[in-house]
Structure formats: structure tokens, C-alpha cells
């Protein structure tokens, strides 16, 4: 399974994606979770420390290309090897690789950016599932940062700004890899909310996740809802999402 989570900022991408990755690993799959947001996010829901589980500068080398400086993984380092060497492991066995995080205005993340891109070009293949968490909005998704995704899951709240973003992201079907694009209706308070998401985004809804105070409480604690309250309604809903996508993949 290769999935990319997209949506408006604050729609709940990271919360859902991290829980999704861990529950997917719980079904026996080997899962790589990718966070390409330069701001922290996915680590919380994966339940790992806010570390730089990114590529060290030494993993990336520069070279001259058409008279300009370009970057690639250091000689002999494949994308798969980079994942095995530099990804953090969560307690559920999920491999976790993130883009180097911003360290203030003078910090350059050029090497991490290019290195991360090269890993995306050479992700581990057979036997791996990939769950990617992209930054909010349309920029990275439409600039091919989710090019590994066979399925984009657009996380949409039943609010006008989130619906408008979902409508724009429906255009991801035009990406070169011809991905499947489905919506997740998030923070749903009544059944009509999921219908609204389908109607206003034009996307098929894979499933709905209820508005869940347990998630807000976990956020305040800076912890994963799956660790604080594994029986929370939102966790059960994400478990259903995993099953729904798995059965789609099996029947495809």
C-alpha cells in the first residue's frame, strides 16, 4: 500500500496518518512513514520523540551539474539503505523518516531537501507499505512530493475552507502516476457531514472520522491519541479506514 495524506492545514492529516501507519503495521505490514513537512507533526501521532529522524548532512553529497551545485545521496547509498540506516523505529515497528526540520531563519536545509527527494525516487519496494504525510495546502502535493502515492487520501473537515481545499486537491488525479484520490471526512459531528464532503469535493469518501475530544486532549499533552486512549472513537474509525483501503487494494 502506498498512501499520501493531504488536506488543508489543521484538517487532521498528521493525526490520522500516524495512527493509520501504526494500525497498518499492526496488521503485519512493514510500514515506512514519511513526513515531508518542515514543521513537526507526524512524530506526535507516531508516538516517537521530536527528534531529527532525518537524513544527516553526511548522507548527501554535492556535485557539479551544468555548472551549478546539485545534491545526491552519497556514493553507494541507495534510497532503501538510507531508510534502513536513518529511519527511526516506533514501538509498533513503523520506520519513520522525516525531512530535516527548520532550525531558525539562518539554517539551511538544502541538503536535507535534496536528499529526501532522492529517497522518494528510490523508496523500498516489495514488501513495504508507505504512508506519507504532506504539509497542508496544495504546494507540495502538486509539486510531486507525493509521487510515490498510488492513493491520495484527502483529509477534509466539513468547513468551507477545508472543502475548498479538498476540491482543489481533487486535481491530484492528473498527476503523472494517475493516483486514486479519495476523501476522509474528518471531525464529523453528524452523518450529513460526510455527505457534504462527498458532494462539495466531488471525491468518493473512503470513510469518516468523528469529532473526538480525546484527540484534542492528546494534542494538548503532546502525545498520540493511540497511546493516551486506544479505545477512542477516532482510533476505531482510523482502524476502519485501514481495513477499507486494504480490501480495496485486494480487490483491485
Amino acid at each position: 500500500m502506498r498512501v499520501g495524506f493531504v488536506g488543508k492545514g489543521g484538517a487532521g492529516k498528521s493525526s490520522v496518518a500516524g495512527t493509520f501507519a501504526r494500525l497498518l503495521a499492526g496488521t503485519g505490514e512493514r510500514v515506512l512513514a514519511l513526513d515531508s513537512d518542515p514543521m513537526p507533526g507526524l512524530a506526535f501521532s507516531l508516538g516517537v520523540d521530536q527528534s531529527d529522524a532525518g537524513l544527516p548532512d553526511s548522507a548527501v553529497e554535492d556535485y557539479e551539474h551544468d555548472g551549478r551545485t546539485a545534491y545526491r545521496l552519497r556514493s553507494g547509498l541507495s534510497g532503501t539503505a538510507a531508510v534502513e540506516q536513518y529511519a527511526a523505529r516506533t514501538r509498533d515497528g513503523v520506520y519513520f523518516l522525516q525531512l530535516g526540520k527548520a532550525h531558525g531563519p539562518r539554517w539551511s536545509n538544502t541538503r536535507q531537501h535534496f536528499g529526501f527527494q532522492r529517497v522518494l525516487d528510490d523508496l523500498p519496494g516489495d514488501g513495504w507499505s508507505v504512508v506519507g504525510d504532506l504539509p497542508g495546502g496544495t504546494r507540495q502535493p502538486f509539486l510531486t512530493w507525493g509521487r510515490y502515492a498510488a492513493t491520495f487520501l484527502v483529509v477534509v473537515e466539513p468547513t468551507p475552507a477545508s472543502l475548498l481545499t479538498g476540491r482543489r486537491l481533487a486535481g491530484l488525479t492528473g498527476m503523472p502516476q494517475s493516483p486514486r484520490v479519495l476523501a476522509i471526512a474528518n471531525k464529523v459531528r453528524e452523518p450529513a457531514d460526510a455527505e457534504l464532503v462527498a458532494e462539495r469535493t466531488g471525491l468518493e469518501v473512503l470513510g469518516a472520522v468523528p469529532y473526538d475530544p480525546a484527540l484534542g486532549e492528546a494534542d494538548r499533552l503532546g502525545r498520540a491519541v493511540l497511546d493516551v486512549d486506544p479505545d477512542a472513537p477516532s482510533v476505531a474509525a482510523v482502524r476502519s479506514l485501514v481495513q477499507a483501503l486494504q480490501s480495496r487494494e485486494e480487490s483491485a
Partner: protein
Amino acid sequence: MKIAVVGKGGSGKTTTSAVLARTFARSGASTLALDCDSNPNLGISLGLGEDATEQLVSVRDAVDAGEQEHASTPDDLLERFGVDAPDGVRLAVVTAIQNPQPGCP
């Protein structure tokens, strides 16, 4: 006075910007609300409505389409491609990314 509102996704940047803009406008200041998000939705928070917000043409798209030849100054661009939002706020969208584009790192 020139203010930029920044923060994490979902923390309330757009809502804060819209309330600031309308408050300044109500107090008599001529106010420009500039949506610099590549996924622009400030119009919704200003009260312009979802459909009108979706139909806004970004200044970047206008310039790319050659409008700079007809609107040669920033004020001209705001005149031609900005819209009036409630309380007299002038709204302009800088850029919108809403189609697949060649990758950039």
C-alpha cells in the same frame, strides 16, 4: 502599518488576519488584505463567500497571462484583480497552486 500573520497550519492565521483586516477597515483605515497562501482561502474568513473566493484570479496568474502590460504598477494590479470584501477591505490573492506542476525541491 504592515502586518504579516504566521503560524502552524490550523492554528488560526487566516481567521486572525481576516478579523484584523475588518477591524482596521471599520476604524477608518484603508486596508489591503493580501492572501499569500498558495492554497488561498482568506476570502472565506473575510465573509466573501466560498464561491467568490474560489473564483478569484491570483495576481501571479494575471501577470503570467500578460496583464502586466496593461496594469503596470502594483496599485493597478490591485485595482484590476483585487476585490472588495465586507467593511471595505480590498482583497488580493498573490498566487494559487492548484494543478499538477513539474517538481521542485
